[in-house]
């Protein structure tokens, strides 16, 4: 009887110790919303703060941008006051433990709000010290950029 009870306890202990991971939490949409707000405010420091210290941007037509300080420089250079707006739509999010994944589309807008180019992105997020931050951010456009007016033949 003792032996049966012990093995029943063993089975219970092993299943409790190896219980499945808790139900995944929701994607941290408030951080994603803050990214858009800060982008539209041209707040490079605020944007950089939404990335992990070891984050990387993988922008098209440019080298990888590594680390929060370089990311701040990137946004200060590429998104100065007066530059085009942005519209982001989420297609898919997934959260698994301390990682999250987000895929979506992006439209860059001209000064009058018109779409000047469209693209897509993937963000890989990490939770560190209880805070969700962007770990990898890759995007590209759906079509080549039209030639600048200066490049067109006379």
């Amino acid at each position: 009887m003792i032996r049966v009870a012990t093995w029943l306890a063993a089975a219970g202990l092993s299943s409790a110790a190896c219980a499945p991971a808790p139900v995944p939490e929701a994607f941290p949409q408030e951080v994603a919303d803050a990214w858009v707000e800060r982008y539209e405010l041209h707040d490079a420091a605020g944007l950089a703060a939404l990335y992990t210290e070891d984050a990387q941007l993988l922008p098209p037509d440019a080298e990888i941008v590594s680390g929060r300080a370089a990311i701040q420089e990137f946004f200060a250079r590429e998104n100065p006051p007066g530059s085009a707006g942005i519209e982001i739509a989420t297609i898919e999010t997934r959260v698994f433990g301390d990682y999250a994944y987000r895929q979506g589309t992006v439209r860059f807008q001209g000064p009058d709000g018109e779409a000047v180019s469209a693209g897509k992105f993937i963000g890989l997020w990490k939770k560190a010290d209880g805070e969700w931050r962007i770990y990898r951010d890759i995007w590209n456009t759906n079509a080549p950029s039209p030639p600048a007016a200066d490049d067109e033949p006379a």
Partner: protein
Amino acid sequence: MNRIHLVSWIALIAFAGAACERTETPEPFPQAAADGWVAAFNSGDAAGLALMYSEDSQLLPYDRPAVNGTAAIQEFWNTYNPGQVRIEVSGVNAERAGPYWFREGSYSAIYPDEGEPRVGKFMELWKQVGSAWLLYRQMWSPNEPTPPESPPMIAPGQEGAA
């Protein structure tokens, strides 16, 4: 009686520990699958490439709309002249993220009629389907703008895709 009890509890703890250890052993990245992708591309096997993607996979290519599903992916890769263009991958980092593998790195695309390779970076998500690890998302971009007259060309059936 006490000795039996003690032995049972030792066995219990060992059993529980062993059971958990099995689930927590880190599984290595499926490097053979990634190597197979490069080998298939460099041998011009677009059909073989398509087999390395999940049915619900997406390519997110540079300067092209997203490409959905294995049939469209096979058509897409055909436009890249696999086997003539050669791909080399370097600086790879892979991390397990829940049920996925996240993988990133740099690539060099060597075109037969160009002196310098086109260099860029990529990011991938892999997922397990049955016993196979397959590409679920794959995205990349070059480090410099691609000359407008250069491939990739528009994939068949994708003209005007949104």
